[in-house]
């Protein structure tokens, strides 16, 4: 069991900014959430706890023929339980997935972001959006391989799960992890959660779920929300990309920003854009080498 000292919230990366010196990278542990889908009952305890803790707005929802509360994530719904009915070997199965930011080690959103300091990645693994710096360009949305960030047209900012960074900084687990009634969400160091995830996968395989996998995709450097997936051969049914990557989307967006220029965008975006053009987008470490 790795030590869990209080996080110092040292910064690893900031959007559209020079990467902080490598010397600080060893500071503090990396944390991770592990979502064990085989224990998830889709109760939405995490969804509610997230909205309650983060004081997100209540949205008018309507039943659209599903147990799912909202059709999609939104600027006020950072965590959504998605329900899919499938047939597995002639039996019905109900795939229930907690959809929220995975907090990639190589965050496509951050790499794509042209606004300095709008997206910050801490040494503890949390990728945090800084709305006051956000210029509303939504390049992060395109940069995310998991389609997580959501734009709020009223505030013209983009939002997503911040892993309850205020709680983590104070030495508490995120609200979703604390509340989960069936311990489908575990919280600890990335190292411990990977080990736990591997044990869980072994257990599921022993119970006959031969395709069980730990979802911690290397294409994004691994994630700080990982899944134990009982039916790993059906990742698409969980809406989990088999091989997500960071960087490609972000780089593709570069041209778009150049085209946008200053015309339709506010002064803030102009300033940020200029800065962005100066620094260029961040790229995954592998690519930077």
């Amino acid at each position, binding site marked *: 069991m790795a030590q869990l000292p209080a996080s110092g919230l040292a910064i690893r990366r900031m959007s559209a900014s020079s990467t902080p010196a490598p010397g600080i990278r060893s500071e503090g542990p990396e944390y991770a959430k592990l979502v064990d889908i085989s224990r998830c009952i889709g109760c939405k305890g995490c969804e509610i706890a997230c909205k309650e803790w983060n004081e997100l707005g209540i949205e008018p929802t309507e039943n*659209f023929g599903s147990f799912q509360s909202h059709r999609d994530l939104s600027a006020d719904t950072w965590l959504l339980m998605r329900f899919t009915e499938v047939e597995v070997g002639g039996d019905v199965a109900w795939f229930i997935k907690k959809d929220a930011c995975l907090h990639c080690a190589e965050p496509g959103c951050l790499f794509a972001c042209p606004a300095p300091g709008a997206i910050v990645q801490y040494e503890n693994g949390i990728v945090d959006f800084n709305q006051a710096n956000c210029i509303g360009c939504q390049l992060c949305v395109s940069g995310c391989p998991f389609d997580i960030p959501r734009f709020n047209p009223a505030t013209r900012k983009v939002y997503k799960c911040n892993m309850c960074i205020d709680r983590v900084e104070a030495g508490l687990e995120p609200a979703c992890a604390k509340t989960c009634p069936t311990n489908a969400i575990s919280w600890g160091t990335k190292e411990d959660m990977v080990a736990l995830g591997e044990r869980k996968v072994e257990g599921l395989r022993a119970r006959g779920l031969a395709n069980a996998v730990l979802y911690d995709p290397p294409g994004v450097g691994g994630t700080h929300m990982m899944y134990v997936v009982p039916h790993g051969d059906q990742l698409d049914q969980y809406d989990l990309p088999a091989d997500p990557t960071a960087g490609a989307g972000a780089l593709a967006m570069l041209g778009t920003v150049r085209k946008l220029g200053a015309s339709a965008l506010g002064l803030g975006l102009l300033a940020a854009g200029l800065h962005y053009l100066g620094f260029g987008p961040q790229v995954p470490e592998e690519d930077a080498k």
Partner: protein
Amino acid sequence: MASLAASFGRGAMTNHWKDIKNADVVLVMGANPAENHPCGFKWALEARDNRGAQIVTVDPRYTRTSAVADRHLQIRPGSDIAVLGGWIRKILEERLYHEDYVRLHTNASFIVADDFSFEDGLFAGFDEATSTYDRSQWRYEMGGDGFVRRDPTMENPRCVLQLLRMHYSRYTPDVVASIAGCSAADFERMSEIVCSTGTAERVGTIMYAVGWTMHTVGTQIIRAAAIMQLLLGNIGRPGGGINALRGHANVQGATDHAIVAGSLPGYLTMPTPAQASFAAHVAAYTPRPLVERTVNYWTNYSRFMVSLMKSWFGESATPANDYAYHYIGKPGGDATWLSMWDEAHQGRMRGFVALGFNTLLAGPDVKRLVTAMSNLEWKVVIDPFLHEAAEFWNAPGVDASQVQTEVLYLPAAHWIERGGSFTNSGRWAQWKEAAIDVPKDVRSDTWILSELFWRVKELYAEEGGAWHEPINNLRWDYANPREPTLEELAREINGYDLTTGRLLNSFAELRDDGTTSSGNWIYTGSWTEQGNMMARRGTEDPSGLGFHHGWAFAWPLNRRVLYNRASADADGEPWDQTRAGIRWTGSRWTGDVPDFGATTPPDGAGAFIMTEEGVARLFTTGLVDGPFAEHYEPAESPTVNILHERVSVNPTVRWYDGVRESLAQNTEDYPYAATVYRVVEREHFVTSHVPLLVEAMPDFFLEIPEGLAIEKGVPNGSRVRVWSPRGEVEGVAIVTKRIRPLTVNGRTLWTIGIPVHWGFKGITTGSMANSLTPFIGDANTRCPEFKAFLVNMEPV
């Protein structure tokens, strides 16, 4: 709960939430704990992941519990006894029962007298005229020594085990399949898991809830489960039991404290008109021992009853006035929910008080309830929220100008503004702190109750009236008589030695000579001279089995698993050393608080101390509709009873006026089976005031099986109308693969699912599910048959 008392001696969850982690098989049937008890359900998953336990669900729907279960069996609503009967048959035919346990701890070896029989759907002693049984025809054969004759070999054809085998021999897999609508093969696959725990090394538990109680045969469904668990040797053991999952924070406590027709605190019984004296009353509930060595704890009935009367009437309860025996009203007949509303429906009820209870949405047949409520002279509703039951005159389709009932609404304090204790399903009474103050202009329940009492008492003093001696003499020695504190009440419940004024530690100290008081004997020990035991917060668990004796207080006597003597064998050795409930050391029992004399040797008495048999009952005379559970069709059923066509429905149910006419008369007009339920995002009705929960599950919906939706042209998310002869609902269709077609008695049957949470007063409003349900109840408990009825459906 009637059923558990008839089987084991007490009507309560046998084990407790955390104990479920000790199981090898978790059968979830008549319940949906992932949705309705999520935090308790975690212990089933702990058993699965830590012990390799199997979780299985049997339900008319594939639920969110099924989503994490190892196997699911879909059955028709109301076919539970057929399924359980099929398992009992298998266990007996294939000798899968835990033989030593059955011989030692049940009445399997007891000989039943010759007059008992079962033929064509009727047990011996049925009287057509009154639709009741003469239960004296279901009796044991007595020996010359005055005790029951027994056959330890259990071979005698008149012994309980053999009668049981004969009774359930009809429940073959094909019969079960034809009744329940599943395939015989699927049933058998499920049976392999469910019937696998009849050994010393394995234990299985059952989680059930109102999916079992809410039937005309609800009590007997639970009886069938009790029989099965006894055969498998699963009662009294950690990881075993029959766990009744209660649906409100203090259902258990409110039942213990007897806000219940027919009972007094601590499961004492309301006196009846025929019991003309205290002695006659006590005699009726003080059973004679049926075997040589039995604790037969109810022989202490008079101690509990006298102590209750001392608690209520103090100095005024004396031997001279039969301990105020006649201060307690003696009901003329059934006084439960359905009978109450039937009285109102017939115009015989004047006033009605609903405290913390949405009476309009909660009951069956809303239209009938509105009529009944409109017949009242007055109604008082006490609740933190103004809900539908207070505004029944404003319900859709009701013309307020025609409703003459006067209604008073009183805003009451909320749980978080008050201390006091809640008792959970597992019998743990936990004290809570008041977090905030009761707002100005709002009053506590305690204040309202005591103010009502005082004002009525004062009116009697001023103007006289009907006999009111009990009101005058009610013991009321609280520091502030207009609002007792919860602490004062808790101590009164625990009870005192009236000679010394000291709080008692145990109900063993209660006396029937008037020297002790206890407001509820099963809570004696909850607040002693050492303080408030319900507020304890010790987290230690030395056994690792989850007993947590230092946390809160579990009745009785802080015992965590009921009937735990049965967790050990004849010598007092645990059946399973890794899951020892209690253990005999040679001089005393260790482990959990023993449900047995602390120093009584293993052979000193039978393991079930609350029964006159000293053992648990596979055969019982305690229920009105039979000593064994038998499958009867729901009052409104898509098929005749294939076991006995002439006696299709439970013959002992009470038919209230006009109810027969309110049922579907054929399956052409009402072809679909229907059932009602909760979803995890909501809790009955109060959550319709909570924005986050309304957002999470906004609208009334109907679950429509995919095949039926295709047949009827219902796209997912479109609106459908569903109706029964009693009313209709309309909502969004959730078209689902999770409900499949059944084949019942040779015909295809579809099931429609209907959630209960909507009304006309919430943040979002929607159809009231109980507009559809029938006004009929269980033969023993009168618990309404919400869970199985017929409907029709069409796209809107």
